[in-house]
């Protein structure tokens, strides 16, 4: 990443000189340092245990039971791998939600990143009032997860919505986007893409890190704009692109709010917006199958973990860390 890149030489320097000095320090000193560290960490550690680790382990346990959330936890029955088996063999809605989520992520995430990068390139110039535009473009992300925005989206993209009014100006007859099973998910994708502010800001920061002398050198060599973008900007930006890609993919898979609001919590019309997390919610809280929902959550966690791992393992082929190390 761009920031770490800048720091890396100094870190290396301190490692070279500092480590032997530490090694000379007494055992006891190191130990008390560690204790102090843990003491300072303890509020966070306790919080992590109480609100994350314990519930997570509990949900892992629940995923092997028939827990229905209404009955006391003490009355649940152990069902082994039944929940997992049903997911993969006997639940069409499960595969429906996997398809919806994957197509959402596959289309919305790359488009969102492309738009974010494009706008970041435009806003990277020294215009008058560029700060204002940066703020304006970031705005949709600020109200991003909000329910209100999804409601506005629904009214913009239904049959009488503003979007169809706009199309009408050109004599194009619109569609009932959000209420049509063919288009509802696409409407959600557009909403997600429109909220490109967060990756855009990160791209902007990345662009600022690219040394200007590289562009100067490139133009001396006779490289045109496109060539400069391809051979200087993109490689220099690749750590930031990588970062955004990982983050936005995870985000994309976890999309819930907009789908929930748009479909009134049903994933409709006809399961067209049945995102994985929404399906999970419906199973857990509407159908009272919390055991099954927990199993779904664990498979989801594993899947996201695997996807992220794949990103990291392929990253070394295309992510360029310019710390002069050429790895």
């Amino acid at each position, binding site marked *: 990443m761009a920031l770490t890149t800048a720091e890396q030489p100094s870190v290396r320097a301190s490692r070279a000189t500092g480590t032997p000095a530490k090694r000379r320090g007494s055992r006891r000193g190191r130990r008390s340092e560690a204790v102090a560290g843990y003491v300072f960490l303890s509020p966070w550690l306790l919080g992590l245990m109480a609100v994350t680790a314990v519930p997570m382990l509990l949900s892992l346990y629940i995923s092997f039971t028939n827990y229905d959330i*209404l009955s006391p936890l003490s009355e649940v029955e152990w069902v082994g791998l039944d929940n997992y088996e049903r997911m993969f063999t006997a639940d069409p809605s499960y595969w429906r939600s996997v398809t919806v989520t994957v197509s959402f992520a596959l289309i919305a995430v790359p488009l969102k990143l492309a738009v974010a990068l494009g706008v970041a390139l435009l806003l990277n110039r020294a215009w008058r009032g560029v700060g204002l535009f940066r703020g304006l473009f970031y705005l949709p992300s600020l109200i991003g997860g909000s329910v209100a925005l999804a409601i506005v989206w629904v009214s913009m993209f239904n049959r009488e919505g503003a979007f169809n009014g706009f199309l009408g100006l050109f004599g194009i007859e619109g569609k009932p986007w959000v209420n049509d099973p063919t288009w509802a998910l696409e409407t959600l994708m557009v909403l997600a893409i429109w909220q490109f502010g967060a990756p855009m800001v990160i791209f902007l920061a990345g662009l600022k890190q690219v040394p200007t002398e590289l562009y100067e050198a490139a133009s001396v060599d006779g490289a045109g704009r496109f060539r400069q973008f391809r051979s200087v900007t993109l490689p220099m930006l690749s750590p930031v692109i990588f970062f955004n890609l990982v983050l936005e993919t995870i985000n994309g898979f976890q999309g819930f709010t907009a789908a929930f609001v748009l479909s*009134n919590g*049903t994933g409709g019309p006809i399961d067209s917006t049945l995102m994985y997390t929404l399906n999970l919610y419906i199973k857990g809280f509407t159908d009272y199958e919390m055991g099954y929902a927990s199993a779904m959550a664990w498979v989801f966690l594993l899947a996201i973990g695997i996807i992220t791992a794949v990103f990291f393992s392929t990253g070394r082929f295309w992510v360029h860390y310019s710390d002069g190390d050429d790895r």
Partner: protein
Amino acid sequence: MHPGTRTHRRRLLRGLAAAAIAVPLVLGAAACGDDEGGGSTSDPNAPVRLSVFYWGSEARAKLTEDALNAYKAKHPNVDFEVTWQANQGYADKLATLAAGGDVPDLFALDDNMLADFATRNVTADLTEYKGGKIDVSKFPPSLVEYGMVDGKLVGISAGENTQGLVYNKTLLTKNGLPEPTTGQTWEQHIDWAAQVATKTKVPGTQDPSADYKAFWVWIRQQGKDLYSGKELGFSADDLAKWFTLWKGARDKGATPTPDIIHEGNVTDISKQLVVTGKAATSWVWANQMPELKKNTKDELGVVAYPGDPSGQWARSSMYWSVARSSDKKDTAVDVINFLVNDQQAVNILGTDRGLPSNMDLRTAFAGTVTDANMKLSIQVENDLAAKFGKAPQVPPKGHSTFRSELVKAAENVQFGRATPEKAAADLIALVQPKLG
């Protein structure tokens, strides 16, 4: 280290661990111990704080607050902690509270949730209070029965309603069209709706094929029922016929387009198609008519669903239930009794949750009503009461799955993604295993 100290320390650790496990268990057991006692031995004038939870609109919240205040005026020792929210998400919230062992003392349910909560023992069995602290002798018997699951009285009917077809009177009069009538056949209704559509450009009726309560009336008129015990009471053929009936209506142009029907399927009462002007009729509950009227300038009318009105029944629109875990059951039961059997409370609550369950009080209340729409909905329902059929059983656990799958199946047919036969067969295969 001395071996003795080590065992000693190990024992200490083990003791601590045991204590760590035991303390919550003991606390939990203590909490369970409270379940059984109804608090009947305690002083009746000791201060009680009762938590109440229900869903509804702002208007309902106001009425409920007034009624509870009337109770408080008579019982100053009782204090209420009231929470309410919109219908969407209500069941989820209640389930979450149940999971946390924090069920409110007194809460509202409807027949969509009753079996789910009752079979999992969230609700208290109120049978022992019947005839004592809760008087249901003035209720129509079907309303009392409709609050029973597995032989236990788990909900006290907060009001009675029945299916009502609400239509836009102004639109019809303006175009010189006849109004729908109770007793019209389904085919007559569809022809009428097609006629309305041709004349007014407003589709005559919302296609209710996704609406469980419309299907329910229709299937009862075919001599079957939605459920028979813990099974579906109809076959795939029956359901396919229902879908085909409405496919015909759509082909005649009697209904809106599928996306508009979808809007009507998922929306709340304030945006029903009869109110938004996207259809001339909406399929609702008769007592919702006054609420619909608040959202439109047009005059509305209400009749029974098509077909023989004996397909309809006196349905408990909503129940009051008491938490099994509550240690204030006596008070909670007393409050319910007040809400359903006290003339003052009944007059305050009006028809918001349905017609008053107590027949004597209903008659007395009806005489005081001045609101024309409320009057009409009471009159229609009273007229129907003579023709009502026997109340069906309370829907079993899994009813909510049937409802959501029916919407999907119907929309699959409407959007042309499945034939009526395929959609019906898929639904039966999906829903049947979830019932129980």
